């Protein structure tokens, strides 16, 4: 297989600007070069079929019939050398520790607001702030137990933080399944490649969940709370429950009794549950407190949580830190709480709630990326340089109407990676979502989900919008 292509002006993960493979890609590229197109095609088809037969699929909504699709998988793995990974993991640890300190602070003394580092008006208007947990001491002071931080690289190859996903980040099952698929397809690549394993993710997750059990419970019963089989990430919920050896429960399996404890309905009667790894958003988790019409949640769950009878991961109310406006303050938070300089910078951003920034954003929208503060999945955003005049005009009105609801960023020409698309290898834009677990210690799985925009030129890597994924190799050295 021929892998070389025109790199353009982008930063390419695998090739130096003169077209020679980077050192950590050399052996991989020579192995791919040895493959005949027929062999390559066979392996591609075998992997797709395996994903389909195992039902490793997600649901696409909004089409006439919601359909199940496999998440397209690209065979060429992304490789991260040790030096880069060490830099990333110290930066991610610093960031998650800060976010947990921030959440504890704003739900208690609000020192950061009093010291005018984080604006009061932003907190007051934060969509995902939960007054229900103000003053509540959550187990071990951990709010975000599982974080999926999206990283990108700019045209110089520098890593930047694009967003923090501190509510229910998904995709980790693809990280694990992608590695399995690569091992099946290319068994002889692995023994000498020096790739760090990712398989112990479920055991780290379970340890962190057990760590969040209520005081005095030595052998906690842990369960995964899912919205159910129609949720697009249901496969992942099951996968993790199975890997951890815990029950997967839906809201209707649980009941909160008069003793304010949570039980699951079993064929032998009620059984106590101590910790929930919940994959349901705050809004739906307890119809007594949040959305009254929710049938996914469990009436009384927040009551049990407030009484200290239940551990929840992630905690309620972490969405404040997910807010894209709050994101812009993370570098300030790092200085404030840890007295350190941020190791991983943010993308340069403007905050239209500030009048000067608003003016700049409205005048320069065609050169900016504008995003809704509380949307995800590539929705509610506009990429100025490729948007039509009408779209920009429409977005200007939206931003004017609700300046607090948006941020604007410099467009980053994401790094590219050799990817098989349209019958040949070519450069496609990628990002990286590593998974950080906060338990007794903060642990980062050496790997992550590399998402790739399969459409030529596209910068949107989301699975709902034509994205695929790659195995991510972090090297021992």
């Amino acid at each position, binding site marked *: 297989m021929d892998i070389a292509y025109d790199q353009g002006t982008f930063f390419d993960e695998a090739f130096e600007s003169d077209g020679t493979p980077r050192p950590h890609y050399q052996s991989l590229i020579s192995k791919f070069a040895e493959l005949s197109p027929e062999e390559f095609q066979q392996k591609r088809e075998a992997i797709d079929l395996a994903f*389909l*037969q195992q039902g490793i699929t997600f649901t696409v909504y909004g089409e006439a019939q919601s359909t199940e699709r496999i998440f397209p998988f690209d065979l060429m793995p992304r490789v991260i050398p040790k030096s880069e990974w060490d830099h990333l993991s110290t930066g991610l640890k610093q960031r998650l520790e800060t976010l947990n300190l921030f959440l504890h602070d704003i739900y208690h003394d609000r020192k950061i607001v009093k010291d005018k580092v984080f604006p009061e008006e932003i907190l007051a208007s934060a969509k995902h702030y939960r007054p229900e947990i103000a003053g509540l001491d959550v187990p071990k002071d951990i709010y975000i137990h599982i974080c999926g931080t999206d990283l990108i690289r700019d045209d110089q190859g520098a890593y930047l933080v694009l967003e923090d996903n501190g509510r229910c980040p998904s995709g980790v099952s693809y990280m694990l399944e992608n590695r399995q698929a690569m091992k099946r397809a290319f068994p002889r690549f692995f023994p000498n490649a020096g790739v760090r394993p990712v398989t112990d993710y479920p055991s780290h997750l379970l340890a962190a969940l057990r760590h969040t059990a209520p005081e005095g419970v030595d052998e906690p019963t842990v369960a995964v709370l899912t919205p*159910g089989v129609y949720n697009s990430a*249901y*496969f992942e919920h*099951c996968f993790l*429950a199975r890997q951890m050896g815990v*029950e997967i429960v839906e809201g209707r399996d649980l009941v909160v009794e008069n003793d304010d404890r949570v039980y699951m*309905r079993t*064929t032998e009667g009620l059984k106590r549950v101590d910790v929930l790894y919940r994959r349901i958003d705050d809004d739906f988790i307890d119809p007594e407190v949040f959305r009254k019409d929710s049938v996914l949640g469990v009436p009384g769950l927040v009551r049990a949580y407030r009484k200290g009878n239940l551990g929840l991961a992630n905690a309620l109310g972490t969405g404040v830190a997910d807010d894209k406006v709050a994101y812009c303050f993370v570098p300030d938070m790092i200085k404030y709480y840890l007295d350190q300089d941020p190791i991983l910078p943010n993308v340069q951003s403007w905050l239209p709630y500030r009048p000067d920034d608003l003016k700049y954003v409205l005048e320069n929208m065609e050169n900016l990326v504008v995003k809704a503060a509380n949307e995800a999945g590539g929705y509610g955003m506009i990429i100025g340089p490729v948007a039509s005049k009408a779209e920009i005009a429409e977005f200007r009105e939206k931003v004017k109407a609700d300046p607090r609801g948006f941020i604007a960023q410099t467009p980053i020409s994401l790094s590219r990676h050799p990817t098989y698309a349209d019958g040949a290898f070519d450069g496609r834009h990628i990002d990286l979502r590593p998974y950080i677990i906060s338990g007794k210690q903060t642990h980062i799985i050496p790997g992550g989900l590399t998402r790739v925009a399969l459409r030529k030129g596209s910068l949107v890597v989301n699975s709902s919008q034509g994205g695929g994924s790659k195995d991510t190799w972090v090297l021992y050295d």
Partner: protein
Amino acid sequence: MLCRVADSLFWMSRYIERAENTVRLVDVTLQTLLESEHSSEDISYRHWSPILSSLGDQELFESHCSETSSLEVTHFLTFSRENPSSVFSCVASARENARMIRDQISAEMWEVINRLYLYLKNTDAERVCREVNFDFFHRIKEFSILFQGITESTFTHQLGYEFIICGRQLERADKTCRILDAKRFMGTVSQVEDDALDTAQWAALLRGCSAFEAYHRTYVSDVSGDHVRELLMLSRNFPRSVLFCIDRLQKAMHAISKCPLTHFSNEAERRVGLLISRLNYATPSELADDKAHQLIEDIEDDLADIAQELSARYMFAEIVDPAAELVES
């Protein structure tokens, strides 16, 4: 075990068994049609009509399909999305249930159900019906049997396994009753009293239950109605006979409750015990042509009650069986 999981295991298994039995009925009817000399569409529909009646699907069929052709019925029973007990609908429901509990079952079990579903979904339905593709029906049966074998050898034989057995045996006992009942409707459509036809019909029923060989090993005689009923209802050795299935069902139910077989700990157990006694002590006169229908109907009612009681005791409140619901309305 979660009540919801017990419910899904039960229905996953029950739907697979239901799909297999519907395939058996379609397969055997198509085979019979090939043997009959006058194969006008009108006459073929007379063959189908008893099957539809015994499944309780006739009204639904007639409300959905304007043509009463063999091809239409085959399609309705096999592929129709509108018919909740078509083979396709059953397999889709089995898969939905399996998907809800895929962390609880073995990867192999999930994969075989998923493969069966994908196979059905990608099959050219029109072509199978038009060309009367027996290989297709054969493969569906094989998938079902493969699923049973994989369950047997990859799934721990504990509580969940017993719920799988309950679903399968309840459905199988019920379907054997319905297959036997189909004969009654056949009797009423044929205008000429014809012994040869009668024998051919009984032989077809036996084949539908994979019981043809078992019959001939048990009875050294031509196929007779009394013997067929005896084999399919009261045999203690033939795995699709009603008594055999209910006996296996009872053992599974008591394994779940850990209550000795000599006692009962809930209404489902009491009802199943009574039913077994009735079959154990049934006399040949109860199986005679004119009485058998009453017995079969009683068994069907008992089985429905037992399923209801099982569900109330271990699973989620009411049984929701879309097929039954549609027939009632």
